[in-house]
Structures are given as structure tokens and as C-alpha cells.
């Protein structure tokens, strides 16, 4: 990997981050403020599911699905975050 590619990637990645942090007041019209407030609810479960059920462009079903199911069950039972992470990880490792 060339240094140029690394710097292009670093600049691009930082530009995306800056666009969000500094762009909010400029590019978010008032009626979209509520939508931005819903970003965590919309993006985080989607991210979790994509990380669990996909491999590149393929949808996959493997032991991670069981790990996530256990995590969801523990979350519903109000287990603390560390317990949720540890149980899901331990289960996937055991399978």
C-alpha cells in the first residue's frame, strides 16, 4: 500500500467526519432535526445486524446469529453491557 493511498484515505475519512460535525447547522433543515435524533435507533441495530448476518455482499447465517440472539435476550433481561458482550463472545467461541 502506498503512502499516497494512505494519506488519501485519511483525508477522505476525516472529511466525512468533519462534514457531520461541522455540517449539522448548515445542512440539516429544521424539519429533519427529529430524523437526526433517530439516527442511533436506525443505524446501530442495522449495523449490528449487518455485522452479524453478512460477509461482503453475501447474507450468512452462522454461529454469530446465536451469539446475537443471546445478546438480545440478555439485553431484554436488562443485563449490563459487559455481561452481554462477554456472554455473546463466549458462546461464539464455544461453538
Amino acid at each position, binding site marked *: 500500500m502506498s503512502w499516497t493511498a494512505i494519506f488519501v484515505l485519511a483525508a477522505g475519512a476525516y472529511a466525512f*467526519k468533519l462534514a457531520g460535525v461541522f455540517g449539522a447547522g448548515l445542512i440539516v433543515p429544521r424539519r429533519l432535526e427529529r430524523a*437526526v435524533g433517530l439516527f442511533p435507533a436506525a443505524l446501530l441495530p442495522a449495523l449490528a445486524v449487518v455485522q452479524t448476518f453478512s460477509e461482503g455482499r453475501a447474507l450468512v447465517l452462522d454461529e454469530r446469529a446465536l451469539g446475537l440472539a443471546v445478546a438480545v435476550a440478555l439485553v431484554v433481561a436488562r443485563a449490563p453491557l459487559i455481561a452481554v458482550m462477554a456472554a455473546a463472545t463466549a458462546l461464539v467461541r464455544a461453538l
Partner: protein
Amino acid sequence: MIRNAIAISVAVGAFGVSFGVLATSAELSVAQAMAMSLLVFTGASQFAAVSVVAAGGALSAAVGSALLLAMRNTAYGLALAATLGGGTGRRALAAHLVVDETAAMALTQPSPDRRRRAFWLTAALLFSLWNAGTLIGALGAQRFGDPERLGLDVAFPAAFIALVAPQLRRAGARTAAALGVAIALVCVPFVPAGVPVIAAAAAAVVVGLRSSRRAAA
């Protein structure tokens, strides 16, 4: 909050080690691997770029696929902007540290003060451990092994679900979550990695606009 930040950051540190190993096996120098973790600082993008290089792909493809994965940080930044406040320099520093884990930790806190503290605390731990992990991996610590073998790849989905869960008690948020998951899964086979999660933001827009209209009516 501190224990959660530590748990997430330790898991990220383990992935840092595997990034270091993968980077050097794709013939990046130790300095290049460190430059990526210090300057790009977006785990999924770094893995994507180095994987393309390791598979013999073109550099443009490596950078392109990495940037698609970095796009969602814009969405996190928009949501975090009100929390981060402060002067331009401070916000410019904060922007560099906006990634999945810092956004998830901060945006799921109940008050603005806790959001700010969660962001900076998680960012400090995460940045330190991700870079320490990268260095250890790049210096040839193959014996630490593959985090996937440790089951750690499910640790992040589990953590994101646990963090976002309290928000999902509200009906609108639940609808946005269900719609976001559906959109992302439907998109996976048809678009490059990174795009499905961005597409899920449409769920927030649809639900947000509908509830604004109802509030106005």
C-alpha cells in the same frame, strides 16, 4: 459508563492487534500500519482497505471501498454535533474521533452532559487501545491470534444492541430500528459494504418526518 467504555475499548484493542497483523502481512510497513490507525482511525475502513490490498486489488478499489464504510461517520457527526459543542479546534479534534463505538456510547446517554463525557472518555480509551493494539500486531504478535477465533466479532453487534436498547422503548425509535434493519438487510446483496448501514438512515428520515408532521398538525 466507565466500565462500558473499557469493555468496548478492550475489544477494539484486540481488533487493533489483528489489524496490525493483517496490515503487515499485506506488506504494509509498521509505520504505514500505524499511520493508518492514527490518521484514518476508522476500523472497518482500515480492514477493508488492507483486505483489498492483501487480495491483490487495485489501490483505488482499496481506498474506494474503505471510504464507503467511512461515510456513516457523517451521520454520527450530524447526530453528535449538538453534544460536542466547544470551539472549532476542539470540534475538529472530536471529529477525528467520531466512529461507531464513540457515537454509540455517546448518543445513547440520557443527558447532554453524560453524552459529552461518554464521547471523550470512550474516544480517549478507544484511540489509545486501537493504536496500541495495531502496534503490537504490526510488530509481529501473530501469537495473539485471530479475534474471530475468540468469538470477538460478535462483541460489537452485542454491544451496539445493548447500548441502543433503552432508546427503543419509544415507539418511533422502535419503528426506525425495525425499518433500518430491514432496509440494511435487503440492500446487502446489491450494494458494496458500507452502503446498507447508510441506507438505514432513510428509516430515521421517514419516521422523523412523519412524526414532525404529526406534531405540526
